[in-house]
């Protein structure tokens, strides 16, 4: 956590500095905004990690002396299979096609997208294939 946080924070600081230099040398707003955006992209999660790294037990992956047995236990729940990402992806595909070829495709997109969203939520709540 500490290394990851430092790493993100450093990215943020770097872009902050570059962004300021850019603003005061180039006076160009688009690039400045994007650089400052990148600075926040680094600093926000980086700061969050650093804040937490002082308040929690280090992850097993961050302890140099951890062994597989010291990390025994549940890692997490992983879905074995799920059809909803496929339907959601196709829904997104049809949604973009709607923008190009007209509204007649919108019902297909909506049907696919809605079913995938509902199905996905139900699946993750029940913890199984729906």
């Amino acid at each position, binding site marked *: 956590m500490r290394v990851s946080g430092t790493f993100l924070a450093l990215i943020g600081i770097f872009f902050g500095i570059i962004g300021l230099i850019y603003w005061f*040398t*180039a*006076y*160009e707003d688009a690039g400045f905004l994007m650089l400052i955006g990148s600075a926040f992209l680094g600093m926000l999660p980086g700061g969050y990690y650093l804040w937490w790294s002082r308040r929690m037990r280090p992850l097993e992956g961050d302890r140099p002396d951890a062994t597989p047995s010291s990390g025994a236990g549940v890692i997490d729940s992983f879905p074995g299979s799920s059809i909803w990402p496929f339907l959601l992806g196709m829904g997104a595909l049809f949604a973009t096609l709607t923008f190009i070829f007209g509204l007649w495709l919108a019902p297909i997109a909506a049907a696919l997208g809605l079913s995938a969203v509902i199905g996905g939520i139900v699946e993750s709540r029940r913890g199984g294939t729906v």
Partner: protein
Amino acid sequence: MNAFTNGSPTPLSDRDRTAADTPETPAAGRRWKRWAAGLAVAAPLVLGGCNFYPSYGASRGSTTQGQDTFKLYSGMMTTGIIVGGLTGLLILYTILRYKRRSETMPKQFHESIPIEILYTGIPVLIVAALFFFTVITENKVDATVPFAAKVTSTGSPVVDVKVTAFQWGWRFDYPNDNVSVSGDVTNGPQNHGPQMVLPYGQTVQVTLVSNDVIHGFYVRDFNFSRYALPGVVNVFDLNIVRAGFYPGQCTQICGLYHSEMLFSVRAVSPAQYQSWLQSEVASGHTMKRTPEPATNTPPPYDHVTHSNALAAPASKKGSL
């Protein structure tokens, strides 16, 4: 900028002539005499120059800006060949020297801080040197004669040309002389498109605009290209050093006939240039399409007054 010190054309003889073969050179006999005389005196110089600035396939430049660019290019290429060549040889040596010949396990070393610092530090120095020369050249190439200097200049007046790029052709306006030349893709590629006639030995200030999409103004022998950006007025100077025919072409994809968007530059002596202007006016190639008279003050193509907000940083470039 040395815009005014560069008034006289460089003699043809002691320059490399591979860059642009001129269709309108002096009579052959005179030319050979000059060549011979020039060679006798300048051969060691030229050879020396060639060795110091090998061309590596590039044009040596037919403008002072292009020549500066060429020197930078050549120097950087030499550096690149040395550094890249040494690195390549080092890789080859390592591969051949440490090719697996037995199954013994090599020593498992995995770092050496002094060496790592060394090969971080040396590239930094090389890069710093390259950047230094880049900035020097960049300031020369990018320098333009300011408006005030143009008005007060004597002896070597600045030639203003407004270049308008459009799909798919070029228009060259000479606002001070009310001459306009244009041509487009219908001219056929074999004619090299419209021709921009310019004097050598004088500063030419090109104002580059676009009517529709982005085009690229590029003349190979000038070692220079610049976008014609809609909504932006780009200004640059050219100091052509010798007579010649220089083909140019649009480099930025601009639609269907991008490949055919050719033009050419013909550099002539200032006297020939003046007579060309007169003949153009006589044959009616005047600026019909430009509403305002060319003598308007301030001149309509001054980049200081006419640049939009986005162009502002451009005027600051070079001032790190």
